[in-house]
């Protein structure tokens, strides 16, 4: 354990460094989000993730946003445990009939101003599950959507880009 702590102190951060030429797009977008998010919301944007019926693929990539490589929190974006603490609902999956009320209630519990980000191809229109008796449809069939991030599942980079687009729009 002490070895790890010393190593962590001495080693450069695992987070992908800002000046890396081949990843310039990612870091540039990070700075852009920084400025816009600050303007609108001070230093933070709190996100509540809701799985409304996904296959859990999107959850895996949303998880990756929190790892040391993407380090979402450096941009002031943070996942929170309750919709009552959230500015943004990040919703995945086709909305299933069984999850519809839970999503509506979660949305109602989120204070204004709030934004809804629909993540993944299923969240757009139900994806491969569209037309099922058990699926209501995309997220906007139940709550108003401000932004949709495509992909099956979207990569962490695509998710970051999407979150930036949201902040730009709301600013």
């Amino acid at each position, binding site marked *: 354990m002490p070895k790890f702590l010393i190593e962590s102190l001495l080693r450069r951060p695992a987070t992908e460094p800002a000046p890396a030429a081949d990843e310039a797009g990612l870091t540039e977008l990070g700075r852009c989000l920084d400025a816009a998010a600050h303007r609108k919301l001070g230093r933070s944007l709190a996100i509540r993730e809701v799985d409304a019926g996904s296959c859990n693929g999107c959850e895996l990539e949303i998880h990756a946003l929190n790892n*040391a490589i993407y380090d979402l929190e450096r941009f002031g974006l943070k996942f929170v445990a309750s919709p009552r603490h959230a500015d943004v609902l990040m919703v995945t999956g086709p909305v299933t009939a069984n999850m*519809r009320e839970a999503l509506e209630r979660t949305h109602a519990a989120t204070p204004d101003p709030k934004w809804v980000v629909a993540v993944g191809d299923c969240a757009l229109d139900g994806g491969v599950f569209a037309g099922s008796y058990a699926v209501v449809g995309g997220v906007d069939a139940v709550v108003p959507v401000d932004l949709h991030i495509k992909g099956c599942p979207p990569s962490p980079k695509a998710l970051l880009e999407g979150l930036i687009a949201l902040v730009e729009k709301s600013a």
Partner: protein
Amino acid sequence: MSLRAALYDAALEVADQKPWPRIRVDEETWARAAFGLHAGDVTLTALWGEPGAVHMGLIEEETGEVLVLSLDCANGTFPSVGVTHAPALRLERTIREMVGLVPEGCPDDRPWLDHSRWGVAHPLGAATPAPAEGAPYRFLTAEGPPMHQIPVGPVHAGIIEPGHFRFTANGETVVRLEERLGWVHKGIERLVIGADLERAAKIAARISGDSTVAWSLAFARAVEAATGTEPPKRAHWLRALMAETERVANHLGDVGAVCNDAAFAQMLNRCGQLREKVLRAADAAFGHRLMMDRVVPGGTAVDLLDAKPLAEMVAALRHGFPPLVRLYDNTVSLLDRTVTTGRLDPALARRWGAGGHVGRACGRRCDARRLPGYAPYDALRFDVPIRETGDVDGRVWIRILEIGESLGMIEQLLAGLPKGPHRVDVAPGAAGAEGVALVEAFRGDTFAWVRLDGEGRIARAHFRDASVFQWPLLEAAIAYNIVADFPLLNKSFNCSYSGHDL
């Protein structure tokens, strides 16, 4: 004579199912099989229905051989298996609500996946209109003055799938946990009816996103069995390369997440970095971070784009993972949370036929790659790690050891990758041809069954994730642990909600 052989001898008719037979039986043979389950002579691997018939998939533990029994339900009922064999209970509740067949004598008449929200009753049967306003659910009780209930979900605090947990606790001690699942039910088994193979494969790949390779493989193998298609040798090896890469990625995520739930964030951080390496290598090698839609009936959708990233990933993990294992094993405060926590009774693991880390941490020597076995694992050297403790620590160790085994397999697969095509055309198959497959996902064995319509479409299918038999065991493992240990225990199982709910 084994029970499986005796049951086969009692067949009224043998259906066109490959590679293991499906037999039509009478009620007496059905009952004999149910008692065989109760006695532990065979293990239940699937129980599902269709209009007019129920099917029971049995597996012989010693050989891994499967037998499917079918019983005609002329008057819309069948004798309950769950009345003597509890692992069948939720499956029978599902048959009743999905197909409309009534399990006679089943002690639990509550719905399971059907929350009265679909607007349709018996969607896999007569599909009649029904109210969609929702209905209250009768949770099981635990009575006594100090008891209190803690309802959790379906929307949880973390970035995880939805499910409802109803705890009854005495102070900090959990007396009973009851799960209520079905929230992410998407109607998968009805969606695939009439779908062509391409569309059905896409749906099967999304049964549980974290096991997308394993589910695609199970579906592909079932279709190949039904149509008599033999994929080229290279395809088998590429599939195993993807499956083992998927296993490593998931196990890394789980080891980190279990430790994080014991407030040891360092492990999550380090494992998360290694996991990202694996996903990037998968992306470079196969063109998708989770390798979704890469395994298809007939072979693989893509050839290996680049082997180098996989080799580099293995080298990075061989270097980076052992120090994390030592960190886990030398951190007493962490072991204090995992050792003896959430101990699962091996007899229950046996009875429910638990696969994967849940079963193997309880001493069960089960692994579909070995028994019944499938290509190319017969050509690979690997161990199936076993632990006897049945606790959170045991399940963590199974994952740690399996990461090592999978890395070894990836090296062997890269070194010996056969040349040649990676895909063949799938024959249309006869109308009514059936195929069944057992594939080892990172959670354990997944079961897929398909029936074709003779024109390249699915007539009917059934999918059973490893989670189906692991979820009930979670209820047993948490009993008399403290509420605060539940996240740790839940993560050590890491059952799939989507894979269960379908």
